[in-house]
């Protein structure tokens, strides 16, 4: 059952086309990773799916409806975006930031109420940031900030979360923490999760489905076992690798050889 349908997408920056003739489907309640080298279009696709960018040609359907037919706040109640880098130079508290996630659910002059606070606190609990709630957001670490932004996304109560390199600047333990959180969300609430991620090994551990991208095209998609092959990696990354099963986690792991 597809929740997102993309047909014949074309998009680029200025005159340079970056995405050409892209079509794919995302199944409801799946955890999908977009992998590929820099410039392959991972971030671009995330932004197109969250309607931040408008495609030159083609259509995106959300739950069967053209994504452009949704009102802004309506869309924001369904899709949450966790961008790559969130820099906040102003002294809001963590709680303030997470509460912003409730914006799509409020009318213009409506104040945040007890219910909103409860939802925000729940989101902070889930991301292990509740203890930071009164701290100023400029005074917490990068990893903590990233989790706060995720908490904000959770507070939106979305059915789809899009994340652009959520683990890029995190320590390994925080990377695992974030991905575990996302997987739990996916399994327990059925939230559809789409992650642009560069770490192939982590992608294979957590994903139901992987799209491998190169130069704006989907080179292969499917279950991790199907997609993560020597041939694909060599083609996309120009790198010779050995692929075997990790004896501890039983997931695929790739190791570059001939380096």
């Amino acid at each position: 059952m597809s929740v997102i349908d993309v047909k014949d997408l074309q998009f680029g920056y200025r005159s340079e086309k970056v995405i050409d003739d892209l079509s794919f489907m995302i199944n409801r309640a799946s955890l999908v990773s977009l992998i590929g080298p820099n410039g392959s279009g991972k971030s671009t696709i995330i932004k197109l799916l969250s309607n931040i960018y408008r495609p030159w040609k083609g259509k995106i359907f959300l739950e069967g409806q053209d994504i452009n037919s949704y009102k802004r706040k309506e869309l924001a109640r369904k899709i949450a975006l966790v961008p790559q880098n969130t820099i906040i130079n102003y002294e809001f508290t963590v709680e303030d930031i997470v509460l912003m996630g409730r914006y799509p659910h409020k009318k213009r002059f409506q104040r945040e109420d007890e219910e909103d606070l409860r939802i925000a606190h729940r989101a902070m609990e889930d991301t292990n940031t509740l203890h930071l709630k009164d701290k100023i957001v400029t005074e917490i670490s990068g990893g903590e900030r990233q989790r706060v932004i995720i908490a904000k996304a959770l507070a939106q109560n979305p059915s789809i979360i899009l994340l652009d390199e959520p683990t890029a600047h995190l320590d390994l333990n925080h990377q695992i923490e974030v991905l575990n959180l996302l997987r739990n969300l996916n399994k327990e609430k059925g939230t559809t999760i789409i992650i642009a991620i560069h770490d192939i090994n982590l992608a294979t551990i957590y994903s139901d489905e992987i799209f491998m991208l190169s130069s704006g095209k989907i080179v292969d998609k499917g279950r991790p076992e199907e997609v993560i092959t020597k041939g694909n990696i060599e083609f996309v990354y120009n790198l010779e690798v050995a692929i075997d099963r990790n004896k501890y986690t039983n997931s695929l792991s790739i190791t570059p050889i001939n380096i």
Partner: protein
Amino acid sequence: MSKDGIKLKINKKRYGLIILVLSLVLVLSIGFFSVIGTANIRPLDVLRIVLSKMPIINKHIEIEDLPDSYEAIIWTIRLPRVLLGVLVGASLSMAGAAFQGLFKNPMADPYVIGISSGAAFGATIAIVFGINISILNISSISIFAFIGALAAVFLVVNMARFNHKIPTTTLLLSGIATGQFLTAIMSLFMVMNSKDLAKIVYWTMGTLAGKGWKPLVSISIPSIISMVLMNFFVKDLNILLTGEESAQSLGVDVERVKTYILILGTFMVSMSVSISGIIGFVGLIIPHMVRLVLGADHKILLPASALVGGIFMISADLVARTVISPMELPVGIITALFGGPFFLYLLRASRKQA
């Protein structure tokens, strides 16, 4: 923990109380500063004069014993001047706070998109060509300054606009470039018409003196409406500060919000500048002061900046008009004298933090 203890723990529920207190301080300041001046008039007499102009109460107030000059001083000179100061200070400060949020740049002030250079240019045209058509009791110079300000901003915004979007960094650069350009043309005018040079320079320096009620009455309703409307966007401003893409994904209509804030800000500042000339530092410093104590939430920042800005402006004006009596200092000098060192302090404090 939070910074060096300057910031108070502000509970959102306290916002209403804070606004109330600030409003009270403002009203008291207006009363206080209306009483002080170089002409020695007793506070009680000041009160009597003001009351004698109020629609219903005036039947009970007698001011026959006071010289005519007192009435003229208080009613036609001092009171409108203080009220104009409140309006100008409030407009500049609120617009400054909004622009600092919009541009995510603490160095932004209300003039950053070309309003001041546009207004000065408009005034220059009116002065050099000796234009003399006053509308609604506002002088031609003020009208042309106003048009100049709007035109400059229109130019700035359209130069920065790309694909129905207005990228904020481009907007800033466009504002600076246009500002320089207009100032250069203005200098050309001034050099070519040197007899008007002094008049142009004095207009630009900014003063609240000698305007009377008429211009104040003309701009007060539109200014107040603009300020009220600006507050409609406080939530959006908060969210914009986390990044335009984040804001958009939360359902904020980013481009529309930017446009409204620009329009409202430009409007309220242009009205003030067209009457009082260019008074600097207020729009830059007051938002920082308020943010330092009350935090960055625009829900409190914007209205508090307006109130504090009003109080600050009339305090500075008091110094300007009394300290070297019977002469006056240009009020922009007082605001700079206070603003300059304070700004350095801010820089130090933020550097210590980083």
